Structure formats: structure tokens, C-alpha cells
């Protein structure tokens, strides 16, 4: 990946670590520690169950009994941005840098609701959106969800769709 891109991602990830206030605060909210996960921390479910928070509970609290008594809903069964970040670090430590970048986008997307996320994907398909619409979506990602990495990714798509005529009306 290009050095500019890599530098930007590094910077954002570092900011996440430090819990720097806006615009990445949405992602950084609960990352208080400075730890960087490695392959030795894998699998997290076995080696670091304490890293996994399900609301204010732990993974072990999600039992069949808890489900049966109505204490667990599908909304609880969500991966946190912190775990995605840790899995990204593990992937990188295993030599797979691009997976970390993917998971860093994913960490941001945890804030976006299912319906909106599906709409955003569809908006990125060819001939669906004008450049302005894509740029507005990038702004929404950045401002409403603190999704800086995703926002940059969508802006890059908008530029390239314009060049290669993949915007609304180009077909």
C-alpha cells in the first residue's frame, strides 16, 4: 500500500490508542490501555476473555440460561471496535497488514446501524451515486460516526469513480 496511505492509517490508529478527542472519539471511547496485541494473545476468547466486553458483562456471562431468561438479545452479540482493533494487530503481527486496515474500517463501522450500512454499501456500487452524494456520505461517516478511515476510503472511491465514469448517469 502507498506510504501516504499507510502513514495516514498509522496516525489514525495511534490516535485511537491515545484516545484523542474528536473526530475519532467515537471509536476511541473505551480504549484506555496502550496494549498492542500479538499472535501470542491469540485466540483472544481463550487467552484474554477479560478483553471481551458484552455490554457490562463478560463473554462467559452469555450462557444458555441467560438467553433463556431473556437477559441476552441479538443486540448484545456484537463485536466491539476494541476487539476488532486487537484482531487487526494480531493479523499485522502475523504479517498481514491489509487485514489490519480492513479491521480498522470495520471497527469504525460498528457504530453504523445495519440498515444504513447496507445502504452505504449499495451507494458505492457502480452508477448508484453522484460524486456529491458519495462525498456527502463520506462526511456523514466522519462527522456522525467518527469513521475517519472509512470516510477517506469513500472519498478515494469518489475520485476514482469520477475518473473511470462509474458515477450515477455514466452508464
Amino acid at each position: 500500500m502507498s506510504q501516504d496511505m499507510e502513514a495516514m492509517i498509522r496516525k489514525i490508529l495511534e490516535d485511537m490508542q491515545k484516545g484523542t478527542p474528536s473526530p475519532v472519539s467515537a471509536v476511541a471511547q473505551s480504549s484506555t490501555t496502550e496494549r498492542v496485541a500479538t499472535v501470542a494473545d491469540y485466540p483472544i476468547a481463550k487467552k484474554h476473555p477479560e478483553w471481551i466486553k458484552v455490554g457490562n458483562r463478560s463473554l462467559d456471562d452469555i450462557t444458555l440460561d441467560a438467553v433463556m431468561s431473556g437477559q441476552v438479545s441479538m443486540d448484545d452479540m456484537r463485536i466491539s471496535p476494541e476487539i476488532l482493533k486487537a484482531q487487526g494487530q494480531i493479523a499485522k503481527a502475523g504479517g498481514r497488514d491489509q487485514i489490519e486496515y480492513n479491521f480498522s474500517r470495520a471497527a469504525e463501522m460498528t457504530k453504523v446501524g445495519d440498515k444504513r450500512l447496507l445502504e452505504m454499501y449499495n451507494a458505492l456500487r457502480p452508477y448508484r451515486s453522484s460524486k456529491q452524494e458519495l462525498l456527502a456520505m463520506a462526511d456523514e461517516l466522519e462527522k456522525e460516526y467518527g469513521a475517519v478511515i472509512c470516510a477517506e476510503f469513500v472519498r478515494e472511491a469518489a475520485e476514482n469513480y469520477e475518473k473511470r465514469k462509474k458515477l450515477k448517469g455514466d452508464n
Partner: protein
Amino acid sequence: MRSKRFEVLSKRPVNQDGYVKEWVEEGFIAMESPQDPKPSIRIENGRIVELDGKRREDFDLIDTFIANYAIRLERAEEVMAMDSRKIANMILTPTVPRSEIASLAKSMTPAKMVEVVSNFNVVEMMQCMQKMRARRTMANQAHVTNVNDNPVQIAADAAEGALRGFAEEETTVAVARYAPLNAISILVGSQAGRPGVLTQCSLEEATELELGMRGFTAYAETISVYGTEDVFTDGDDTPWSKAFLASAYASRGLKMRFTSGTGSEVQMGQAEGKSMLYLETRCLYITKGAGVQGIQNGSVSCIGIPAAVPSGIRAVLAENLIAAMLDLECASSNDQTFSHSDLRRTARTLMQFCPGTDFICSGYSSTPNYDNMFAGSNWDAEDYDDWTIIQRDLKVNGGLKPATEDAVVAVRNKAARALQGLFAELGLPAITDEEVEAATYANGSKDMPPRDKVADIKAAADLMNRGVTGIDFVKGLAKRGFNDLAQSVLNLLKQKIAGDYLQTSAIFDDKFNVISAINNPNDYAGVGTGYRLEGEDWEVIKNIPNAIDPRDI
């Protein structure tokens, strides 16, 4: 006068297959096309400005995406300057570590990668695959479908497949609106056969993601990428939309891989005069650049195209090998039917079967061929014993285990009963005892009583509208006394919180321990290293039920 010999030969199954000569201009060439780009890279100010003979201003979407994301610049000039044959020999040499090869591969351009791999014959490629496969332990994947979308049969076949060793099981639909029921059926059935098996339902991209978000499925694979911009556009996506989708999956804790394969661009009529392998290599670089952990490739549903041209089956192995070199999980096809000849379909599969891949088939039909809704598979349920006996003959782990009739009947019955209970709990059309009995003993849908499909489809839509999720499956199974299955479905949902199975080549054992390229990395480094079929695995594979014990005679 007609030669009697030729008369006989003309009737052989192999002569019912279609063959064509190469046609370079239309991309009807498997690999090594004179029109393939020559490897080159030029980097200015930390940015690729020329890739494989093309300048950045001339890049299409795919070139740009690859240049921006898929190639590590750090060693690029060094690796590009290395002799391709020398690199090929390093890959082949057991003592050069896999990690060093993966490091070199990161900095190659697509054309360089193709040039390196084109040096190999198939035996060398198999040796390289044995070393480069990401996960140390090989596995296999099943297709579980039927012409009627019969849910009870799906559950029973999934249970049997899981018992027989498949680590992943994939369903799809004959009628699209059946999807939620098929997804539930394969999920419940798989866990009845063996806890920890991952299941998916192949659908249109957005629908597939929605089912995953709601806990109907554990992973996804039908996220296709293509090697030319025109075909990618026709596929209704771009590298950016597909990469965004990949992140969307990860954001819900769902495993996913992309799908691509040689021949798809030719089939869609826009190969830009490049070889099939070169275009497929671009797909693999898009996958790598998107940060997706793996790929289903090996021509897949386009296998008829490379199989028709010279060196086509070699190209299919080459594309699997390139996936492994790029450190991607490789589910290596061996799925769609391509030949009338049993010899030819077996020879095609030995390329992946012998060295082992992350998933040798993607997938192997767990039903008779007439029930396979992925247009038939190269292997089906009626080949189960052929597969397990070839494993035993060659002392090779092909990901399956021999199974006894009693054990198969028992898990099929359990799966059918569990689904019967869950359907009742979810308010879905009843599954009768007659259907449970039929599914328990069925070979295919011809052995199943008909269901009211209109009622099923209506109920499926209603189920989605009611907002039913995986948690409801857990509750329903437990209420009907299937606590072990309820626990397994819950465990699968919990994996989405932990994210361990998002890592490369991840599967689960029956205790939900994750097995991936992170904690089970391929450590092949020559004779006596890497995965060896020995100990308990070998005991299981060699003990086919129909072997006679000479001491008993």
C-alpha cells in the same frame, strides 16, 4: 470404413467434453499469453506510478486499487529485479521458509507473480502448495442443497456432512425467497452432525450480509471479484464497494472470503486479450488489497472454460497456489461439474487433494448430483466412499472421515427432529413425522414427501418481517429439549463477539477451539515437517467400515 477402435473411443465419456484451441486475442488461453503484461514497477515519492507496463494516468479501477493497497513498496524494487526462475526455485525448496516466500510475494506485481508461477510444472506446484497453504491442517467444505429447498433434507444432509468431516457447509436456494429457511436448516443440521461447523447461505450480496447480521449464518463466501474493470462493473461492484462490504462483514464479527476464478472474464466476454491466469491474479491482488483473509478460487463455476483449453487444469492449480503465496486462505474449488469423465474429474482434484489446501472442495456436494443447486459438483454424496478410500490408498487427509450407516442415520434423525421442533417454536409450517422419517433415510429429494412450498415461502418472509434472529433459534432449540444444539448455535453467535475466527483460514473443532493460520500455521519445511497424516487422524482415515480384519478369517 470406420476404425472399431475409434468408434469405441468416440463413445468414451471424455469425448463428450468440449475442447477448444487457444485464441489469444479473446483471452481464450489459460496462462502464458504473449499478450500478458510484462512485469514492471516504478515508485515515485512513496507511490506506484507504473505497474506492469502501465502508467498511473492510464490505470483502471483495478490497477489503482492494486497499486494503492495490494503491493508492499518496501522490497518491491529488490523483488522485481530478482530472476523469476530463481524465486520459483526458492518456493520449491523446502528449506526456504514459507514466511520468506510470503514476504517476497507481498512485493511482487501481478505480472511478476504470474511469471514466477509459470515456471512450474504441476508436480512442482503441488509441492509448493504443500508448503504455502496457510493453515497447517487441511479441511473440506460441503454444498448442502436440493431441488425443492426441502428444509428437513437440508438439515439431515448437513448433519451427515458435518459428521463426515466437513469444516464448512454452504447452502443456496432453488427459489430465492426460501433463503431464510435454508439458512436455518443448514445451521441446525450442521451442529447436530458436529458442533463447530461453520455455515453459509449463498445469495445476492446485500441479502447475504443481512442474514449474517441476524445470526442465520456464520460466514460468507459469495462475494465475487473480477479481473477486468468491465466485468467487475457488470458484476455490479467495484473494488471499493467490495472492500467496503468486506469491512461491513468484519464489523459484525462475520468471517468472509471473496470468490474469483479463471475463465470468468472470458465467460462474460471482456477478457481484454489477457490470459485467464493473469486476470485471476489481479482478482487475488484485489482480495489482498481489500484486507480480506481468503478467497474461494480455482475457476469455480467457470471451470468449463479453462478445462477446455491446453494447460487449463494446470492454470487452476496455479491460481490456487498464487492465493496461498499471497497468504490468503484458499478454498480451492473442485466444485462445479466440468467433465463426463470420472478419470478426468479425479485427475483435476488430485492437484489440490494431494498437497492439501485450506478447503480442498468449495464445495463437495453432500447430496446426489441432481440435488446440487450450484449446477452440480465435481464430487457428490455418491462419491463419499471413493473419496475416503482414495485418502486411505494415498495416506492423504482430504478432510473427510469414513462413517458408519448407524452413525449417519442417527445424526440425520437428530437434525430432522431438532428442525421439526424449531419450526414449531418459530411458528413455521409444520414438519411432519413422516418427513423426519424420510429425511433420516433419504439419499436425495426423490425420497422426500412434497411440502407446501407456497406456505414455506410465505412463512419465510413473515419470519424476516418479525425480526427473528439467531437468539430465537437458541431459545427454540432449548425449549424443545435440544440443549446441546442450542448451546452450539449460541457458541457460534459468541464467536462473532470474540472475532478469533476472522483471522486467516479459521475453522473450529468440536469444542469451538479456533484453528487458523495464526495458531496452526503451516510449518512445512521438508520431509518430516508440516502436517503429517499420523496418529489419531490416520487411525480414523484408515479404518473404513468395509475393510475386513484378516485376523477374523
